[in-house]
């Protein structure tokens, strides 16, 4: 039971990029020409070899497929199973861990997400991707709404950079962070309906991470009312549906009869 997370050591941007790079940089054209002994015309620098194949690169397509189908429970199960088989320090491990953490974030199941990040070796904990995931997780866990949206923005920018170390992973994470944003906003919106009888527009903007006009559009769509003079929103409460157990059903069902018959039979044995 540790009191807090480990603090990654400061590393320069170049060192961080080198740690995540799995592609061997192409040789310069002159060196490539000098190394050939044929009379073939000097070609442009050879394309970089594909990333080193390992267990993580082989499982990644399935993870990506589950993410695009929004099957996050299956994704976490697959990723957890496959994080206990292979090599520990490979940078390709982020192909499994990063989607795993985001899937947990989407499902709002945060403790396993934190354990997954803690499992990373120190070389991988120090890379910007892991650090940003950790920061997003911390803000989400503490429900620091303003920070969540800022970190989502920063994360999206990171994974969409042209020199992000794996473009497929970057594309997948971009999709997943967008799903997380929608899920988080939706949960927050439902919470506001439950918790507030009325709230100032500025506060709603902070909670939802949207500008005023978008907040008003969303609120209006959900039946909220808005007082322009006081700039106060009044959520529309959901209609009180009686719980199933309180609903009087004039007819019993066959399932109920079966259940009662089974229970009585057990009492008699």
């Amino acid at each position, binding site marked *: *039971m*540790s*009191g807090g997370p480990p603090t990654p050591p400061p590393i320069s941007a170049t060192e961080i990029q080198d740690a995540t790079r799995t592609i061997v940089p192409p040789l310069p054209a002159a060196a490539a020409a000098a190394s050939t002994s044929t009379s073939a015309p000097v070609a442009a620098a050879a394309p970089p070899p594909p990333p080193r194949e390992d267990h993580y690169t082989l499982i990644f397509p399935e993870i990506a497929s589950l993410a695009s189908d929004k099957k996050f429970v299956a994704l*976490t199960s697959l990723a*957890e*199973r496959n*994080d*206990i*088989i292979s090599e*520990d320090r490979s940078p390709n491990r982020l192909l499994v861990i990063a989607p795993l953490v985001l899937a947990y974030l989407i499902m709002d199941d945060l*403790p*396993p997400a934190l*354990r997954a990040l*803690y*499992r990373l070796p120190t070389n991988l904990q120090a890379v910007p991707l892991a650090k940003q995931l950790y920061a997003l997780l911390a803000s989400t866990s503490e*429900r620091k709404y303003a920070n969540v949206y800022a970190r989502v923005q920063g994360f999206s920018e990171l994974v969409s950079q042209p020199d992000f170390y794996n473009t497929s992973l970057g594309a997948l994470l971009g999709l997943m962070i967008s799903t997380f944003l929608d899920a988080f906003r939706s949960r927050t919106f439902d*919470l506001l309906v*439950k*918790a*507030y*009888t*009325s*709230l*100032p527009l500025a506060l709603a903007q902070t909670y939802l991470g949207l500008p005023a006009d978008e907040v008003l559009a969303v609120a209006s769509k959900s039946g909220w009312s808005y007082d322009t003079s*006081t700039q*106060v929103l009044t959520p529309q409460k959901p209609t009180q549906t009686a*719980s*199933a*157990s*309180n609903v009087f059903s004039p007819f019993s069902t066959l399932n109920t009869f079966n*259940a009662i018959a089974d*229970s009585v039979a*057990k009492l008699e044995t």
Partner: protein
Amino acid sequence: MAPDSLSLDRILTEITTTNNLPALNHTLKNGLPKESRETILSSPLASGQDPLLVLDLRQNTLGVLYILSARLNTTNGPVPPELVASFCRSFIPDQARLAPERVSMLARGIQKLAAVYQNPLFAVAPLRDLVTRYPTHPDALTTIHPIFLQACISADQLIAALPVLSIPIAHIIPSLSDLTYNDNLMYHYLGGILFALLKKWTEAEEYFEICVTAPGSAPAALQLEALKKLRLVQLISRGEVLTLPKYVHAALPRLLKNTIYTDLFNAYPENAERLQSILEKEKQTFSTEKNLGLVMQAIDRAPRWTLKKLTATYVTLGLGDIARAVGIQSEDEVRALILSMIETGELSAQISASGTVTFSDPPPQFMRAEVDAVLYNAQAQSEILEELDLQMARSKDFIGKAASKGQEYGMQDEEMYMAGGSGAWAEDAMFV
């Protein structure tokens, strides 16, 4: 070396040719000299070959089990890790159950191998396969269970343990595993820790309580540690400590009473200053006992329990009043706290734009299907208890004790009868 190799060659021949597995087990267990058994089993063949590469990992489960467990526990030669994983995936459980002590050795050996590789993750998959495939019932405790949990916690692979922990232990089968009293304590203690790491407080509380309430002639040190964690988990999840069950060893609460934790429990949750001073003063002790994280979480959550107590007295309160009552400076922090409590279902309240909080009773949130599920679960548990009760009543020890008690009470009844009954009988006799 030559005599050992010859012996191992002979053993290998017997492993691959015999149809009588109990006899093979007897040979492997008793046929070799005790002082050199492990050395012989972990040595190569006369030809220099590795016997593990000659044997079929599945068909020759019993032989491979003996050799592999010996190899993992001696320093005779490295064991290919993929071979260990492959064996655990494919062994025949019925063969392995002939040698439960070797299965325990294998589990401990896998743990040691992971330590040698400095890769705790390595042990998780093979141990998971062992613990799910070896027992005859999924709810039967074995020596593998606590070792598996230890591996999961060391490797931070907590999710891998959840399917095993989700099945409560209901059977102790002595012939299945060379269990000791400590295995039960350790399994439930580690289970509690694992659930606490995942912030599943209800399950953590249950597992720690099972450890604390395990019967014994004297409380174990592990039970005292489990009791400390149980209390801290209760503070985190309930805001108060609950009375221990009556069947807890009487000395255990007294042992806890003499520790610093009592001051913490008594000050919780209102006395925030006192809680902080205890934390500062005893930080080293909490850290040494690996409770610092739980203590800090409990203290972090103290304001919400203070707030919850306000709902017993007030229907509405302003954010400022609540802030003063719970000892938080900022109204924004109080607002965030209330929102968090509403989100987790710990509080039923609504906030208005003016900062007034109105508390209400939580609406019932159960569905018909949930009620039915609870009923079926209760019926299933009742059946299990009835079966356990019958098993206990059939046991030799119980019948012997009941008979001796019965004789004792029977004599007492006769004495009472002789002492007090004569008057009544005398009256009856008059009417005959």
